[in-house]
């Protein structure tokens, strides 16, 4: 038996070393309040890294402990399991995004039933209230799309393309829906183009293909910076940059530069930084002072960044806070 003591001991030490390394790396200062954030966005995504920056900054400012969890890919099963784990760990607050109410509804209801205050952000503005969530912090997608459509129609666009990278993600579908409704009301037409933004080259080819197939298109709306990049590339390759009116949701340094240079009409900004920041503040205040918000939705957008304001915002975007 003594033969086996050594390897077992080595195993134990190795195991502890590996995991302890991760734990110490990620350990924050212990405070009484612990909040868990479960979102569907990976930190490698440029949009979501801004959200995470907001979360991290709020944790610092509020001096609370916050843990950020997300599945490796857009995986609703894994995300619901992460929420279950978060609930089982009994936090003082839970922040979630709700891209799929069917998949996540049960887990969120369980959290609420367990007495954990839940705030939703970014996606799920339409379902948040019925799930028992305290408040939704984000942009109401339909209204944002509507606003975008109104602006584009006002700019004279008659036939637009709405490029959707996650058809089925309710939030994104609503954006295109609002956009379509506003454009239709103004007498224009909209076609929805589905792309897979995990492969930007493919997305670019798809957009170029749609433009060739329908030469009447004079406007494109993309639903994020990972959509606007291929769209701009497609337009540039076809020599149509500036001729076809381009607009997008959400900011990035490239998007802002394009607006400043006149290649993009506007960007619809949902201010994802405060989508990360505000829920932490609200949950801290709820835990310490029982404060609540009366609205169902705390609207962080739509804000419109146009050529007039682009330059100022560029620096902030490069810093990862806009």
């Amino acid at each position, binding site marked *: *038996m003594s*033969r*086996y003591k050594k*390897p*077992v001991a080595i*195993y*134990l030490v*190795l*195991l*502890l070393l*590996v*995991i302890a390394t*991760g*734990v110490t*790396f*990620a*350990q*924050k200062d212990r405070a009484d309040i*612990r909040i*868990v954030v479960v979102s569907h966005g990976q*930190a490698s995504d440029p949009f979501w890294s801004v959200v995470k920056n907001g979360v991290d900054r709020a944790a610092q400012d509020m001096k609370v*402990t916050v*843990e*950020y*969890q*997300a*599945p*490796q*890919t*857009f*995986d*609703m*099963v894994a995300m*619901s*399991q*992460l929420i*279950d*784990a*978060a*609930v*089982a*760990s*009994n936090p003082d607050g839970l922040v979630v995004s709700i891209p*799929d*109410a*069917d*998949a996540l509804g*049960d887990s969120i209801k369980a959290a609420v039933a*367990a007495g954990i205050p839940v705030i939703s952000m970014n996606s799920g503005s339409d379902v948040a209230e019925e799930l028992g969530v305290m408040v939704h912090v984000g942009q109401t997608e339909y209204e944002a799309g509507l606003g975008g459509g109104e602006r584009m129609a006002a700019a004279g666009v008659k036939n637009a393309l709405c490029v959707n990278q*996650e*058809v*089925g*993600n*309710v939030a994104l579908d609503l954006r295109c829906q609002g956009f379509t409704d506003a454009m239709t009301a103004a007498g224009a037409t909209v076609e929805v183009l*589905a792309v*897979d933004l995990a492969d930007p080259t493919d997305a670019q080819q798809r957009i170029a293909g749609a433009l060739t197939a329908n030469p009447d298109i004079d406007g494109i709306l993309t639903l994020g910076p990972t959509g606007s990049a291929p769209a701009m590339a497609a337009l540039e390759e076809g020599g149509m940059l500036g001729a076809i009116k381009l607009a997008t949701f959400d900011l990035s340094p490239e998007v802002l530069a394009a607006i400043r240079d006149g290649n993009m009409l506007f960007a619809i900004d949902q201010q994802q930084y405060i989508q990360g920041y505000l829920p932490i503040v609200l949950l801290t205040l709820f835990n310490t002072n029982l404060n609540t918000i009366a609205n169902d939705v705390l609207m962080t957008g739509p804000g419109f960044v146009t050529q007039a304001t682009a330059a100022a915002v560029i620096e902030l975007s490069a810093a990862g806070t806009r």
Partner: protein
Amino acid sequence: MAATASATKARDERLTESSLLKRLLSRPELGAAGGAILVWIFFAIIAPEGFLSLRGTASYLEVSSHLGILAVAVSLLMIGGEFDLSIGSMLGFAGVVMAILSTVLGVPLYLSSLIALALALGVGFVNGYMVNKTKLPSFIITLAGLFIIRGLTIAFMRLMTGRTQLGSLDSAPGYAVLRAIFGADITLAGVGFPISILWWLAFAGLATWLLLRTSVGNWIFGAGGAAAAARNVGVPVDRVKIGLFMLTAFAAWLVATIQIAVVKSADTKRGEGQEFISIIAVVIGGTLLTGGYGSAVGAILGALIFGMVRQGIVFAGVDADWFQVFMGAMLIIAVLVNNFIRRRAEEARR
């Protein structure tokens, strides 16, 4: 008289059966069992409030059960000497077929589930048949399958619905039946334990019995250990392999159905990456990559370790990104320890 008595005794000494301890030590699951216990102790110490709670236990058992069903089937296939890299795509495919048949064509979910099962078994058969016929490594054939099936899933979904995800399946006809069989919760002391855990354990039990207590199980070891030698003594190696590929396809279908019952939606990305994670769980459980040696019980333990680590990380407050680092490190450590223990155990027996 005395001479023969002592001679008999001497002979008996040499023929002494290995002690129970030595038998245990030579089992392929030993390393994984030790690992599971250590991981459990580790998280019990670091994050007792979450990990040890009933709810926490339910949460990691749920994760383990989904992976575990796949891992059990994959372990049998790997013992039989083959790989199935298409199992993740199969999962997505089965789910999408079910969802489309029920929402677009109005077929009750339990029926569309059976149709998806038939399709899955068909694909499994084709995988096995191709491996036998072409004599190409199953790694290559099922790698092609990974892309082809995933592509078909996406194309089919877009063609029929224009979307990449179909939700609200709880309002599809026949959902209640599906939920009751595959998605219900068993309540213990106020906490719901998903029924997938029972499916997992039942499947694992049957697979272990098949492997260790039937002729077919012996054939699986033979086919994986030395297919030509097995053929020479009359083992129907080709049929065994086809059966094993159909088993992995069945497991993919089962998990897809369970996930639809629980999550009420299907999407084209479902199951991505599961083929590699199940191989990791199987290898942690003591099965050799080269075939002919391993255990389904080990796969259970490997899946259990995976679930505990996956959820334990959340309880411990560690960033989810570190999960992949742990998984890789755990794999290497587990294989090294498994090899070490097995070699020592074998020496001890001589």
